[in-house]
């Protein structure tokens, strides 16, 4: 099995190198069309790569402890689905999986014959594939075996490290860390990786375009579906991570500005800016240079994010620890940045789109402000991430920035961004003036003021929360008003709605952002908490709820851990609305435990309980109960982001037609 897994990976790697040689040879002869041989070989290489991944999965599922990676992440008690997810539970496996994802994206692009049909585009994508496969092959090989040397010591190596060494399979691993045994683990990493990988294709295509033609025309039209798909996966990946982190106690809640979280947000911010500016290029043929820069940056920032996650330079929840791949990654990133910058510089003049700044309030300008704020937030995040390294270089001591930095520097920008987003849809395309705008905003403003007043009376007196609620209400009202303005006069509103999917998809995305903001207001501004030590029969109140401790239970679900649960009845008024079972899974062998929260989710919010402490002999528990109002709007909002983008994706941008008439009728 080792031979099959390692051998097919090695063959796949050799095929990649052959393709590299063939492609360079063709480019030297100025041939741009990808040859049939290369296409065939690429598909063959991908099949072998897949075979290798499947073999590793087989080794994991059948627990072959002669493989060092299996020892790291698998143990006999681990259920099958976790033995599969262990593929991305450790450094070597997840890097290998990542190189496979890149290969997968490459093959899809190649076979769909839509983008990457030039040797240059193929070459740039292939170089990335080879780089990451090389890391898996030489630095973090998941197929390394455990060997027993003649002196009885163990060693880790692919092939026999010394004469007389024997493959050793007596090590039984501790298995995947208990904190990773959650169904978020099944889905969050692969979705994020696909998002990361999907940005490679536009990157390769754009570089290729710049090498060959380089005027920035048509590029966006071709890339739009790929960019949207990449953005959807990136968004879903980040949202799933946030949800998992909220669902598992101790990872800092839904968002903690942890370096790894922050580093994945940076490409998201930049690509979100790209979605806006590429829309302008499609409609008005402007912002070509900006778009090219943003496409390239999105992928480069993803490599940066991989570097932050993998290199262990910065302490983080997700850290994989020190690793030999740091230096190669830094070199690869810097080389890619320099090369991309050079290519862009070469075509700079050719991509001039002759845009002029005409009005402070035109839609163009508002898109530009949106882009500026998004990039500004990305810069703030980058500064926060790199500050420990910068300070170490310049002052010799490491100085880190805490959450307070992001709260203070990023929050005002985020609020400004959402405000802009709320206001934007009512502004006309080219030139607008304030007087005209005032009229359109009358009703939405009224709605927002009423909502804020209601919130002041019933919900909160905090001015930040009220400001946020004002913006959310304004934004939603504006979206409804614009949709109404679009559709109430046309003959077939539904078919117009369907025809304009690209427009209403964007509205859905914006609705999603507003809903996420609503969730954040709930958690940050309106939550309430209590803790107490209870014996069976005790009841403690929280808001309109009561928490009654019934009994403490404990049993071994599997031999691996003891699951201790506090059985809690949740009272609302005079009736029991739910049985909550917060507790701990105690892994005695590894002297570790994992807290399992018990919660009741409704649209109004979560009732979230944690068992802080317990005594099996005395039968008492300490419970912390928290009400997180509106929190689920965050996940609903994230769903809207993906749904809206997918909706938009299903249709090309409508250039003139009906939309133009609707839009410009008042200008």
């Amino acid at each position, binding site marked *: 099995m080792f031979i099959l897994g390692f051998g097919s990976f090695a063959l796949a790697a050799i095929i990649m190198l052959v393709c590299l040689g063939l492609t360079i040879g063709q480019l030297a002869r100025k041939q741009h069309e990808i040859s049939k041989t290369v296409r065939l070989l690429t598909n063959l290489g991908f099949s072998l790569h897949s075979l290798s991944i499947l073999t590793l999965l087989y080794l994991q599922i059948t627990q072959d402890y002669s493989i060092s990676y299996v020892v790291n992440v698998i143990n006999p008690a681990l259920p099958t689905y976790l033995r599969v997810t262990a593929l991305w539970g450790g450094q070597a496996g997840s890097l290998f999986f990542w190189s496979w994802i890149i290969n997968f994206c490459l093959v899809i692009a190649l076979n769909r014959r839509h983008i990457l049909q030039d040797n240059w585009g193929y070459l740039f994508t292939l170089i990335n594939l080879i780089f990451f496969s090389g890391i898996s092959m030489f630095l973090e090989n998941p197929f390394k075996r455990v060997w027993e040397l003649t002196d009885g010591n163990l060693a880790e190596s692919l092939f026999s490290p010394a004469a007389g060494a024997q493959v050793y399979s007596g090590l039984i691993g501790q298995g995947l860390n208990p904190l990773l045994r959650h169904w978020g683990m099944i889905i969050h990493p692969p979705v994020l990786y696909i998002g990361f990988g999907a940005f490679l294709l536009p990157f390769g295509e754009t570089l290729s375009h710049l090498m060959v033609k380089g005027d920035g025309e048509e590029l966006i039209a071709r890339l739009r579906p790929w960019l949207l798909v990449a953005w959807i996966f990136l968004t879903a990946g980040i949202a799933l991570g946030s949800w998992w982190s909220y669902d598992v106690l101790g*990872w800092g809640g839904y968002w903690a500005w942890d370096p790894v979280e922050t580093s994945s947000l940076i490409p998201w911010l930049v690509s979100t800016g790209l979605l806006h500016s590429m829309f302008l290029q499609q409609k008005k043929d402007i912002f070509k240079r900006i778009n090219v820069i943003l496409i390239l940056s999105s992928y480069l920032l993803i490599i940066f994010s991989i570097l932050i996650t993998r290199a262990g330079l910065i302490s983080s*929840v997700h*850290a994989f*620890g020190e690793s030999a791949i740091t230096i190669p990654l830094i070199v690869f990133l810097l080389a890619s940045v320099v090369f991309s910058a050079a290519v862009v510089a070469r075509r700079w003049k050719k991509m001039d789109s002759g845009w002029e700044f005409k009005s402070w309030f035109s839609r163009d300008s508002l898109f530009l402000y949106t882009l500026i704020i998004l990039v500004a937030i990305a810069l703030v995040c980058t500064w926060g991430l790199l500050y420990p390294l910068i300070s170490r270089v310049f002052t010799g001591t490491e100085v*880190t920035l*805490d959450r307070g930095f992001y709260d203070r520097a990023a929050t005002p920008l985020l609020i400004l961004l959402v405000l802009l987003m709320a206001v934007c849809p009512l502004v006309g395309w080219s030139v607008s003036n304030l007087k005209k705008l005032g009229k359109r905003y009358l009703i939405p403003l009224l709605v927002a003021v009423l909502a804020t007043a209601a919130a002041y009376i019933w919900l909160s007196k905090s001015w930040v929360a009220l400001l946020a609620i004002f913006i959310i209400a304004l934004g939603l009202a504006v979206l409804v008003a614009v949709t109404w303005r679009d559709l109430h006069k046309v003959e077939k509103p539904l078919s117009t709605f369907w025809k304009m999917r690209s427009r209403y998809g964007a509205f859905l995305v914006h609705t999603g952002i507003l809903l996420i903001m609503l969730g954040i207001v709930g958690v940050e501004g309106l939550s309430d908490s209590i803790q107490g030590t209870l014996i069976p029969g005790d009841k403690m109140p929280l808001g309109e709820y009561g928490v009654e401790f019934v009994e403490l239970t404990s049993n071994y679900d599997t031999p691996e851990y003891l699951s201790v649960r506090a059985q809690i009845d949740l009272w609302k008024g005079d009736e029991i609305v739910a049985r909550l079972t917060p507790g701990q899974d105690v892994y005695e062998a*590894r002297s570790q435990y994992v807290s399992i929260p018990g919660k009741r989710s409704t649209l109004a919010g979560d009732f979230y309980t944690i068992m802080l402490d317990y005594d099996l002999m005395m039968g008492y528990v300490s419970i912390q109960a928290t009400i997180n109002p509106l929190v689920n709007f965050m996940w609903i909002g994230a769903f809207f982001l993906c749904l809206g983008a997918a909706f938009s994706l299903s249709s090309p941008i409508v250039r003139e037609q009906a939309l133009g008439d609707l839009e410009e009728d008042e200008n």
Partner: protein
Amino acid sequence: MKKKPNIKLIIGGIVIVIALVYLVISATRSNTQYFMTVNELLTQQSELQGQKLRMSGAVVGESIQYDPASLDLSFVVAQIPGDHKVIAEMGGLAKVLADAVADPNAPRITIHYTGVKPDLLKDEAQAIVTGSLDAEGVFQATELLMKCPSKYESELPDQVGD
């Protein structure tokens, strides 16, 4: 065709840059924390008092005290080097942590924290703690980050509590 530079855009650009730089600098100033070892903390105790700091040390298991009713958590950490390279030279993080806890002469400091006890807080874990020194020389933590390496598990996730 040469375009005239647009004065509105330039002014706008300058204003944005100034605002952003101000925002970043002011936020940086009020939220920096020095990363220190137990040793450095103890030797510069008087100067550092009240300053926002971040420090790392090895958790001494038997010192962990936790009152779930008040959420008062205290434990002792022992000196480990701050530099990754030094740690690697000394035989890796797991060994450095174990040695630090076993060595009765290693400099130690008491941490106090109010909040839920992190699952990974245990003997020979690495604690990365944010907070400040009080007048009694106790480190009052506002945030805990735990790491526990072990021989066959280099990819352990860490855990935060705040």
